[in-house]
């Protein structure tokens, strides 16, 4: 027996980095599989293939072109147009004019704008996982958080930015904590399953926002029937960090900071220790004197607060108002995202960047290569499927099994 002092507890990070191979290979496999759908939705390719026997060269060319167009535009959507970038950079160097530069870098910066709500919502679901809870209600919590942030954002005036912005953000987080806390409370005291309750609370949240936007929060004199709230006061903005039209705002940095805080909370604090104990083995946690009920409520409330930050961030950093359907399903995507990230804050940040990037690139894929946005949804779905069924990827690429995180993630349904 030897206890090596050099043997630091690296597994926590290794756990996060170790799962990287899996998402990467999942992504690759998903792109390969998605090619079939891209080709299948391309009329030119289909015609060429029909005549393929008589003219195989032409068919092959059509296939190649379709794929190059599709993934090329995905690339441009994600990184921007390389030709344009180099042109604008040299122009900037010659004239010092940043106008063209910002336009060239706009697509790349968009990745981070989209990744921001994903980070918050992904952290929310991951924190739930760590306590053995499945928070399906992130989407509803996003809307509740956004509504609260919008209200505080437009109704308080004359406050300095340093007070108003944090207050607005906090109001959103508190609303989300309350919202998800209901499900946590019901689980802790009545044993009601959180999957059902968070899912149902989603509908309550959607319809609550619908009511608010058509009633109390409706913008005065809004053009006709558009359900939209007043704009928030500028002192409640999350500032943008680059000139127009780049939308990159401070929310991304806040998200990274929150990710570090969540990591510290989960792995370095006594409260996180309790939450992880309850998630990993509630029986042993209870025997050790840890209150399961308390941790269910706490973890659910924190999870809701994190999800709501995604909504508050969108209101304060991007939209500056509350509108119906402002979230294209960040909360639902984040469930898969948190799994992809292995339930670990670092993994969540990386997975959120991937999801943000894919969603952002997809827009260009649609406009440049005329590929339906559904195909991008298909790519995402494949990534998630391969992650959810890791054994396929492991078999395919002969990876060694990594049991640790799986154990935690699959506990969620145990109830």
């Amino acid at each position, binding site marked *: 027996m030897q206890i090596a002092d050099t*043997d630091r507890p690296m597994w926590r990070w290794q756990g996060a980095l170790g799962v990287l191979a899996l998402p990467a290979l999942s992504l690759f496999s998903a792109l390969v599989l998605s090619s079939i759908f891209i080709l299948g939705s391309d009329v030119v390719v289909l015609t060429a293939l029909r005549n393929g026997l008589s003219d195989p060269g032409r068919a092959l060319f059509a296939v190649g072109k379709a794929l190059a167009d599709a993934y090329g535009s995905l690339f441009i959507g994600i990184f921007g147009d390389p030709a344009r970038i180099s042109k604008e950079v040299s122009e900037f160097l010659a004239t010092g004019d940043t106008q063209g530069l910002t336009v060239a870098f706009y697509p790349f910066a968009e990745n981070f704008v989209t990744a921001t709500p994903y980070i918050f919502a992904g952290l929310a679901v991951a924190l739930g996982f760590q306590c053995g809870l499945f928070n399906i209600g992130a989407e509803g919590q996003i809307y509740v958080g956004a509504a609260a942030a919008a209200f505080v954002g437009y109704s308080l005036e004359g406050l300095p930015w340093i007070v108003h912005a944090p207050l607005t953000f906090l109001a959103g987080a508190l609303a989300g904590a309350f919202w998800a806390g209901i499900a946590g409370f019901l689980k802790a005291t009545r044993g009601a399953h959180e999957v059902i309750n968070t899912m149902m609370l989603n509908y309550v949240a959607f319809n609550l926002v619908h009511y608010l936007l058509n009633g109390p929060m409706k913008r005065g004199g809004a053009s006709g029937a558009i359900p939209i709230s007043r704009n928030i006061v500028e002192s409640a903005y999350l500032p943008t960090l680059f000139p127009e039209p780049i939308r990159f705002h401070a929310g991304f940095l806040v998200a990274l900071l929150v990710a570090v805080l969540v990591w510290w909370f989960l792995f*370095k604090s006594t409260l996180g220790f309790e939450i992880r104990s309850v998630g990993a083995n509630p029986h*042993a946690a209870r*025997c050790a004197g840890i209150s399961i009920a308390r941790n269910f409520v706490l973890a659910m409330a924190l999870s809701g607060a994190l999800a709501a930050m995604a909504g508050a961030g969108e209101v304060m950093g991007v939209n500056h108002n509350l509108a119906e359907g402002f979230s294209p399903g960040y909360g639902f995507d984040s469930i898969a995202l948190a799994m992809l990230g292995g339930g670990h804050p670092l993994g969540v940040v990386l997975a959120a960047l991937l999801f943000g990037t894919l969603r952002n690139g997809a827009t260009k894929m649609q406009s440049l290569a005329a590929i339906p946005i559904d195909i991008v949804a298909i790519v995402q779905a494949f990534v998630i499927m391969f992650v959810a069924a890791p054994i396929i990827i492991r078999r395919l690429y002969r990876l060694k099994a990594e049991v640790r995180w799986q154990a935690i993630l699959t506990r969620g349904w145990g109830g």
Partner: protein
Amino acid sequence: MPPILELDGITKRFPGVLANDHIHLTLEQGEIHALLGENGAGKTTLMNILYGLYHPDEGRIIVRGKPVKIDTPSEAIRLGIGMVHQHFMLIPVFTVTENVMLGEETLTRGIFLDRAAVAARIRDISAQYGLQVDPDAYVKDLSVGAQQRVEILKILYRRADILILDEPTAVLTPQEVEELFKVIRSLVARGVSIIFISHKLKEVMAIADRITVLRDGRVVGTTRPAETSPAALARMMVGREVILTVDKPPARPGDVVLDVNDLHVLDDRQQPRVSGVSFQVRAGEILGIAGVQGNGQTELVEALTGLRPIAQGRVTILGHDTTRATPRHILQHGVAHIPEDRQRDGLVLTFPVADNLVLNTYYLPPFARGIQIDERTVFASATQRVQQFDIRTPSIHTLAANLSGGNQQKVIVAREFTRPIQLLIASQPTRGLDVGSIEYIHQRIVEMRAQGCAVLLVSPELDEILSLSDRIAVMYRGKIMDTLPASQATPEKLGLLMAGVHTEG
């Protein structure tokens, strides 16, 4: 006649471990051959090789004189080798018949399964080997002993005549063990050959024709019960002299630490499981609670540790009323708890050893400063306790799941005994442990007693109760039948009380 089964030079390596090192073993027709060894000695690996679950790196398997290659369990069964695992592989909601035919749905009428024909064969086999099993009963309604007979039936149904029993008595009550031994003897009388895996010396002495002892993956020797003794076997297993009896000075009972008064406890289905139990445990004494498992001991311990609500009665620990206290409050009153199911209740298996060592003290100084856990203190304390309690682990960052059962229990003991405690509630503290670990745990419990700790020991193992306790209370159907001083307790007296028979004088 050649042996029915021969293992010749079987070697199996796992990364970093030589699990089996040139093992040689023969099994004669109609023989009960016991394979004895501590946890981790390589018994299970060897049997998994024989059953086609692992492949040996070297060596030959010879069945009925012919060298064979066993790649899958079905291949093993075809060769007449069947295995009863420690954890049963039965489907609770199926009947015995359905479980037996599962995987072998060959008897059919058209496209329908011919359950009646299978049931008839089961009755035949039952009668032939004296295995009492009702083919139409649902497995979930059967006792553990009966479920084990279903497992044996499954094997006989597939016409196997070499039976591997992996720790078959671990889950049985003493009575069920006796029944199992009867079944084994009748099987052998009809020509079945049996490999009996165990780490319990007495059982092996009672049932085996020959005994092969494994240690660290090697055969230490093969002997016969008549030529050896439990002490000699223990020495072979552990590799050193083992003290089978616990040496303890006379008790010097002090003040009452635990006072239980007319305790009533209900189980999850609101059925009374503890009905009017009263007793006291004093500082410096060990009160043993004997009884066949399932007579309310589990609920009693859960009630005392705050895990289960108390329906009626009063529990006082060191003068504090803890009848309604939470588990944390009870722990803070100086109570240590060794739960009966260490993997379920004692440890978080996916946490490293260091975290498990602070599972109930993580929030207290010096392990926490405010809400921040002081990892350096946690690690330093873990390193120190791993050495002090001789926990065999590659590192304090190894997950608890990767330790052997004995070392897992040592983690719990190290966690509980290094807190300032005045009452130890130990529930089956040596369940499933090997001789060396049992000796260790027993010594530690006696040490706590010497330091003035009150000890409540709950165990269905009479040997354990008799060797440790100063006083013995016997539980039967939720009541305490009688409490005897250890000096007056004999296995016979206790056995009668455990069966609910009251004796006078």
